[in-house]
């Protein structure tokens, strides 16, 4: 009797566990999409590249899609008509090759992309959360089904044991004493183990996440909309963040930098096309925000001149922005390495910044995230003469043994590339 119960519970737990594990092992389409594709593609809207929802159905074949993702330029060069059409249509901007993505990965990405539904009319600010919920819908379904099955199993088991008891009574056999569940040692032991595993999982996950702040979106002293500046007005990121090309820090511009344009632009006139809202849905008056800037920059908008002290120094004060992207002190990150040398688009790490009114942290900025990218990304091997010292790799490229060289292969995963 005991053994049977134990067996049935054991199988249920195993089944649940296997189910859980298998869901872990499958490629995570959303994560892959966000780390690889999201800088240029939106599932629903055209961005640098086309909207991806349903793209797998548009293209000639699955194999074509795989080839395209792995190395689109190769496909274009091969003279494939559809490839050339796409290339020309999208302004001849070549898509970054992703040789590291397996076919399953690509399938997973499209499974995810196709599952994305347009956000409901909840307002523009709800966008980020809406997509998360859409993805989580499946998980809820599975949970509900699992729970129903579990309840069913328990009912059946109770029925079964009740029937057996009745049968035993009928046959006059001495029936084993009923032990209530809460005193059943097997149940208690199982419960404790399950609780222990859950608590451990929660603790480890919590500890790992400690200090990370993905999706962190604080309120800033000035409502500065990247969407208005970089998106609608198409100002180059490097105009303000000039350090990104030269230095370790991308550099937040000082107020006098803003004044290069804002001496002329003293009010926000885009309210009709793009009214400004905070993440909480409150309306923001853009002109008022520009006034705030004038205060920081020490600008008198009436006299159209800087306010100066006795020594002729401009009475400017720095803006105390809330820092969103925080790396621990023992991490050395250099923007210029990635922007000037690696030619990585800002969006790859910062997300669609040109779509953000209020900036949030797009990437987890975890070491795993960095390492993943270093494993998958190819360096500008042929283009940058610095790499001419790697004779071995050049020979291998010449003989066709390899397509390119990833960051990992030139030591990009070694500790002292980032920790010193």
């Amino acid at each position: 009797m005991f053994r049977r119960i134990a067996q049935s519970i054991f199988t249920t737990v195993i089944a649940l566990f296997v189910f859980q594990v298998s869901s872990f092992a499958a490629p995570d389409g959303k994560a892959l999409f966000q780390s690889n594709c999201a800088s240029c593609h939106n599932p629903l809207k055209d961005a640098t590249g086309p909207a991806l929802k349903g793209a797998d159905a548009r293209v000639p074949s699955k194999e074509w899609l795989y080839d395209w993702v792995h190395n689109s330029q190769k496909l274009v060069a091969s003279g494939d008509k559809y490839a050339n059409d796409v290339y020309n249509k999208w302004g001849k901007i070549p898509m970054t090759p992703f040789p590291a993505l397996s076919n399953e990965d690509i399938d997973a990405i499209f499974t995810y992309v196709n599952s994305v539904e347009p956000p409901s009319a909840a307002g523009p600010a709800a966008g980020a959360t809406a997509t998360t919920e859409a993805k989580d819908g499946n998980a809820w379904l599975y949970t509900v089904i699992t729970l129903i099955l579990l309840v069913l199993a328990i009912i059946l088991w109770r029925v079964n044991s009740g029937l057996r008891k009745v049968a035993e009574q009928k046959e006059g056999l001495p029936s084993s004493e009923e032990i209530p569940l809460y005193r059943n040692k097997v149940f208690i032991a199982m419960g404790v183990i399950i609780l222990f595993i859950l608590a451990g999982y929660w603790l480890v996950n919590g500890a790992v996440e400690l200090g990370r702040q993905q999706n962190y979106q604080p309120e800033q002293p000035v409502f500065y909309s990247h969407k208005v500046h970089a998106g609608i007005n198409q100002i180059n990121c490097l105009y303000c963040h000039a350090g990104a090309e030269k230095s370790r820090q991308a550099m937040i511009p000082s107020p006098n930098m803003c004044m290069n344009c804002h001496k002329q632009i003293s009010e926000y006139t885009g309210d009709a096309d793009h009214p400004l809202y905070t993440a909480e849905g409150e309306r923001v008056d853009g002109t008022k925000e520009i006034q705030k800037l004038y205060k920081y920059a020490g600008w008198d908008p009436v006299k159209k001149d800087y306010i100066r002290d006795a020594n002729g120094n401009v009475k400017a004060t720095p803006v105390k922005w809330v820092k969103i992207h925080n790396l621990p002190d023992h991490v050395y990150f250099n923007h210029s390495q990635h922007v000037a040398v690696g030619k990585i688009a800002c969006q790859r790490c910062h997300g669609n910044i040109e779509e953000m009114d209020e900036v949030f942290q797009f990437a987890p900025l975890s070491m795993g995230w960095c390492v993943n990218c270093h494993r998958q990304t190819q360096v500008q091997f042929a283009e940058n003469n610095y790499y001419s010292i790697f004779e071995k790799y050049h020979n291998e490229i010449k003989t066709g043994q390899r397509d390119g060289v990833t960051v990992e292969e030139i030591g990009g995963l070694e500790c002292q590339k980032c920790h010193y």
Partner: protein
Amino acid sequence: MSQKQYWKGLEELNDSTAHKDVVDNEFKESLPFEVSDKFLDAATPRRDFLKFLGFSTVAATLAASCEMPVRRAIPYAIKPEDITPGVPNYYASTYVDGGDYCAIVIKTRDGRPIKIEGNERSSITRGGTSARVQASVLNLYDKTRLRQPHAAGQEATFEAIDRRVMEGLASAQGQAYLLTSTIISPTTKEIITQFIGKYPNVKHVVYDPMSYSGMLLAAEAATGKRALPSFRFDVAKTIVSLGADFLGTWLSPIEFAKQYSVGRKLSAKNPVMSKHYQVESLHTITGAKADHRATCKPSEMGAVAVALYNAINGTAPAFANKNLNNLIVKAANDLKAGNGLVVSGSNDVNVQTVVNAINAAIGANGTTVNWALTNNTKQGVEADLVAVMNAMEAGQVGTLLVHGVNPAYDFAFGQKFAAAMKKVPVTVSFADRMDETAQLCTYVVPDHHFLESWGDAEPKPGYYSLMQPGIAPLFKTRAFQDSLLTWAGATTTYADYWKQYWMGKVGGQENFDRALQDGVIEPAGEMAVGGGAAAGNVAGAIAAIAAQKPAAGMELVVYQKISIGHGGSWSNNPWLQEMPDPITKATWDNYVCVSPKKAKELGEELTSITEVVNAKRLLKVKANNVEMELPMVVVPGMHNDVVAIAVGYGRNEKVGRAAANTGKNAYPFIAFNGQTYNYSSPATIEKGAGTYDIAITQTHHSYEGRPIIREYTIDEFRKDPGQLFKARENEIGHYSHLAWVTPEGHGAEGAHGEAHAAPHGPAAADHSAGVTAEGVKSLDEGFRENGTLYPNFEHPGIHWGMSIDLNSCIGCGACVIGCQAENNISVVGKKYVLKSQEMHWLRIDRYFSGMPEDPDTIQTVFQPMMCQHCDNAPCENVCPVSATNHSSEGLNQMAYNRCIGTKYCANNCPYKVRHFNWMDWNGADCFEDNLYEDYRRDDMNDDQTRMVLNPDVTVRSRGVMEKCTFCVQRLQDAKLTAKKEGRPMKDGEARTACQQACPTEAILFGNVNDKSSAIYKLRHDEQKERTYYVLEQIHTLPNVNYLSNIRNTDVIIAGDETKDGLLKAHI
């Protein structure tokens, strides 16, 4: 090869049991807290355990609250155009301390000077630096610097003080004196002239704490000009130094070290080097580098000079010390051969006159001694200062202005001077801190630090060097020149005055900008050379020397340490205080240096004269009517009848916490003969009562007698340059080919051919033809591949390598401080140095050889030692968390945040270069009252001092291991620069901090994979005969190689097998 014996100290030579224990216990203490033995036997250990567990869990939870703090990112209000945050700016400037001069480049990050490098455009210092130059950036952030002017000890305003001082000056009540150190700034001199023009009763008096007046007066007698000549150690083939520590502290050590190293670089192709004779009474680094060294008492130094003079004229010397006689005869012969140079550290006019006569006799004037281009860096004559003091005592002085000197401390009659100051109504100090003199002054008008100042220097006539600030003044201080200008009634500021002066001098804005960018303005072409022939009254000088009877008994010498120098603000520089002295390896204190024989005579028991015991016996030293009790440190190579004490210690507590209560002030020991100082005087010494702990790093990191120094005489090297290579082949050649490939396989079949064949048997003699590049390559590569069972890892792209030339290294310690400044290395304080917990990534090991009883036999070798970045590193294999591992560029990487502090790596490192952070050395102030008991280093835990930290290097916290990284931040930066420009990295673009700091270019660094690089050529061509790797036989495959030390001498005195008995008998 004879088995030479090198030892760090007597304890190692003796190998006493106490020393063995020290060596066995690399970590002197197992844990920094005490665990009672009763803990586990207690009645309720389980409850205690639970209490501890509960407490630590709660404490950790509270400390690491899961709430993320809101961090701010604050940009500039108005960004300066030439600053990009995160990118360093470099400004050429000038280091001046008294007369000491160095052309420098200041590295600033986000407006803060964080590092000082040498300026290679200067033809005087030529990019070299010294430990003090490297450390001077820390003085800028010194907490004890005055933050505003003071009047009568209270904070005051400039205006109030200006009014009172001007009143004092104008009242013309008595004489006024402006007392300064040597001033080499042309604009400052002009301003002083202008100031004296306004107040004619002011007299400018110059003195130097460590004086060169004997030399100045002798030069005046010889040439009519009171100015020192320039020397050319690079041209000199024979260098004779009579007690001048010209590589460490004498006159212009950076310049001389740079020149000296030119003559000391040799290779098998060109086995020529200068010959350096040294006669000295204590042991200096210059003596350590000498090819032939003899000792004499300081009072005999005059007689030695005369004997050398006579020997050149053919008279044999007759000293009791045969080695000294031998040295004088040989030196005289070599000097006569031409290109000789004699220098003397004596402050006696007569001795210097004889030295001038010798230089004249050997034709040095105009070749190695340059009278046409004088050295302006020392101009002080102490007789002038004594006259000022007498005038003050007589009440004839109304105003005293003191700049750059500290006569109440750094003057032989400091106490008398301090008493006399009370008789002067208006006293003004320009000191940066409340030093001994400033405390007695009515007004203190603090001067800027030199990194905050405009200025200039003219170390040699026509050779100018400009000083520009690297930061705006941190405090309410005012340039000394501005004070003088204000008091002289001028309305211009010094900055404007200075700019106008130089604009006029160089002609136009464009030239001025270029001069400011270069940092130096120098005449084109080689330095002018010329010589006055006259040597003064030689006969008179000889007679005067003969008249001075050498004193019997002990003598005391007062000397400068290479780290602390004359004192000044250096005494409060924790970097310098913790820098081990090159010879004694002692930190944080001064002490009496005593020879081993004398120590034994004093009746010390053997254990306390060796270095194993920290507690040093106190010694009573009486000389010059001054008595002092100081701990005794045994220094092999000291003359047996000489003791030596360093100046710069025994400071007042207001000078700073690092300076206070360290050692005792030795300035009162200096004797004055009515004209000049005498730095030595007859002394009596006796054993005092009690002991005092001295933190000596000598016994830390022992090599346990493994052979790591390779040294040859020049004759040995010339005869057979390949003997080192042969020795290496004997050691490792056996492993450099696979056992199943026949070693005799001359020719085709073997993958590794004949070059590293059969080290055993007569085949080894085949190499008389010399060392070939192929031979070196096949030995190195064969050993790399076949000396291990494990796979050989590739280094695609870059493979970093370093080479250290033992012949060029003078042990000066500039690299140690350079490394400390670059890599945020913590100061641990005396208490923790005593526990072997010092953190220096780069240390300079000093090895003696010879017989300790006879100082003349002592030969000394310096070996800089840092992480060898082994390609097969023993430390990497034992790390349980893989916190230390290897990069594809050959770096032994240390990931601090992965380290859990097991210290296995340090235990397994044969080079003993790993250092464990026992404490949170840099952030201890994050809790209140959490600073360390050893208050001396506590000023390092402060927001002001932390401004010196290099933002590109992680500040390590407690519980992690650290070690040399090959300055990986610089390597990454050089690579990134090349990548951004899309070109391969150039050789020499990536330089380590130690390499850049070195004044003798002993350190070379580069990419060994690049066959055109200097390091590749050095290892495989130019210096292939001298190249060796320390402990390479254990197949660690170090990426640091050393070049053997070659001494230009007949014999390397090192206890060999036959002499070992003798050696033992001596102790």
